[in-house]
């Protein structure tokens, strides 16, 4: 293989496609701190394990298949940091097992999916935003820490076709604290935590000509400031609201996003606006899109009746775990032991857990069967959806003895089918 190769980053939802990677030195160029950490040497799970004892891939997969087949209702969760080809097999496997499929968006941007079901999504690609957006509003999003190159490539200092540089683009940040992104903004609007919904409602009222109904202060923001922001939005040639977890993980959740989409619909009577979520993991979009095109839903899908049913109140991983509704779990490309509330982790500790992941994490500590996998984008190839649903082919640039997620799931599905007859 050549010494320096082009690579596509498999860390965050920006999926930067302009990286260089020195295969010999195992070092990347051009990537941010997050991408550089992705493309660096780290501790790996050395070998497949059953109850801490090293075994072969075949033995671990056999054991995993037994656990899943013997479970009444297994939870198959994760999927955001693997490729579409693996996710596809995961959905088939869940259906076969009559289990529950859920993915990381469930604790991330899934409230936005609920809003989209209600209101649709007036969206645009990152390319359109880069080339056209003269006003960008980051709402409850802090890309300087979560998507460090987003601003440079698409939304803050990006040099576009029509909006040529930073001077031609107005950047507004709405957040509950002065984040690193807020410090780069032309305007920072600090709101009280949990007040996104009323602030959005106030903007809708002002833009629709009902400013009289807005009190002097909403969610910690003066009416004057809200009127100013509404004017900025109305006067944009092409505006983009890019929202983050500040909106989906706080009071109001899906309703915040729904209200924001309604604001965008209203703005589109005056000018052109789009709204888009700042998706976290590099293929969390795929973890939703793939089951959507296979079985009709993005997450929280139950197959216990032999056909897919969607209900986040019942079938999201956190709800399933809190109620003790699953008796085994397969966790892939994710770490719920670190990222779920303790009430959910509690049940995960009680049931047999199978983990498929390249790196040891907190879920490894409670997993009964651990199956190490190749790192997609470095050791395995496949397709991932960038945050704006543009599919990109991530590469294999290094040879490895680790099996890819796709290989592992293929074998696991084969075993499960054999055991189930």
């Amino acid at each position, binding site marked *: 293989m050549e010494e320096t190769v082009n690579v596509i980053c498999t860390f965050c939802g920006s999926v930067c496609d302009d990286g260089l990677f020195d295969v010999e030195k195992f070092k990347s160029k051009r990537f941010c701190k997050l991408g550089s950490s*992705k493309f660096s040497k780290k501790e790996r799970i050395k070998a497949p394990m059953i109850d801490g004892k090293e075994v072969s891939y075949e033995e671990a997969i056999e054991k995993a298949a037994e656990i899943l087949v013997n479970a009444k209702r297994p939870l198959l969760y994760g999927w955001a940091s693997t490729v579409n080809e693996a996710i596809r097999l995961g959905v088939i496997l869940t259906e076969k097992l009559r289990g529950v499929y859920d993915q990381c968006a469930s604790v991330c941007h899934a409230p936005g999916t609920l809003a989209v079901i209600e209101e649709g999504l007036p969206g645009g690609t990152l390319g359109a935003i880069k080339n056209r957006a003269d006003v960008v509003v980051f709402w409850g999003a802090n890309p*300087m820490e979560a998507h460090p190159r987003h601003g440079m490539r698409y939304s803050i200092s990006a040099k576009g076709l029509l909006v040529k540089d930073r001077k031609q683009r107005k950047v507004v940040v709405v957040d*509950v*604290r002065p984040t690193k992104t807020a410090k780069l903004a032309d305007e920072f609007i600090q709101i009280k935590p949990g007040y996104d919904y009323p602030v959005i409602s106030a903007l809708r009222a002002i833009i629709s000509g009902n400013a009289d109904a807005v009190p002097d202060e909403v969610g910690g923001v003066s009416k004057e400031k809200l009127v100013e922001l509404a004017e900025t939005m109305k006067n944009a040639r092409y505006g983009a609201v890019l929202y983050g977890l500040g909106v989906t993980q706080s*009071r109001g959740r899906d309703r915040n996003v729904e209200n924001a989409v309604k604001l965008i619909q209203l703005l589109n009577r005056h000018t052109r606006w789009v709204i888009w979520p700042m998706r976290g993991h590099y293929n969390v979009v795929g973890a939703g899109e793939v089951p959507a095109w296979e079985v009709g839903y993005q997450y929280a899908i139950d197959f216990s009746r032999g056909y897919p049913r969607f209900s986040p109140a019942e079938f999201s991983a956190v709800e399933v775990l809190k109620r003790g509704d699953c008796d085994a779990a397969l966790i892939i490309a994710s770490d719920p032991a670190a990222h779920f509330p303790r009430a*959910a982790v509690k049940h995960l500790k009680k049931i047999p857990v199978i983990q498929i992941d390249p*790196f040891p994490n907190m879920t490894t500590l409670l997993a009964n069967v651990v199956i190490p996998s190749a790192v997609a984008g470095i050791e395995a190839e496949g397709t991932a959806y960038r945050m704006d649903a543009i599919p990109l082919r991530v590469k294999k640039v290094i040879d490895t003895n680790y099996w890819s997620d796709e290989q592992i799931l293929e074998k696991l599905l084969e075993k499960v089918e054999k055991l189930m007859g």
Partner: protein
Amino acid sequence: MLEVEIISGRTLDQGATVEEKLTEEYFNAVNYAELNEEDWKALGLQEGDRIKVKTEFGEVVVFAKKGDVPRGIIFIPMGPYANMVIDPATDGTGMPLFKGVKGIVERTDEKVLSVKELLEAI
């Protein structure tokens, strides 16, 4: 003792160490809470001090840091420490309340548990 609202979220260091959860670097990236300077003074905190964060849903000991947050709000990086105290109720959405949970904060001499100890304590 101080009444606060707890928010959690990503940081650059949390992201850069997220695939190395069992290392010292990850531990340091997620085991603290940022407080407003006034709140810091009100609690009589010194550099390196620990605080206990308590909510209806749990409690956790973390290191205290001065940060750019408004008074009455503390920020804990997303991860196992924050998740000890956030609200697991999803209101039917599947999404727990990771941001905006009411709680109290006090200075403590108790130690900050390691990631492994934390998981054992659940």
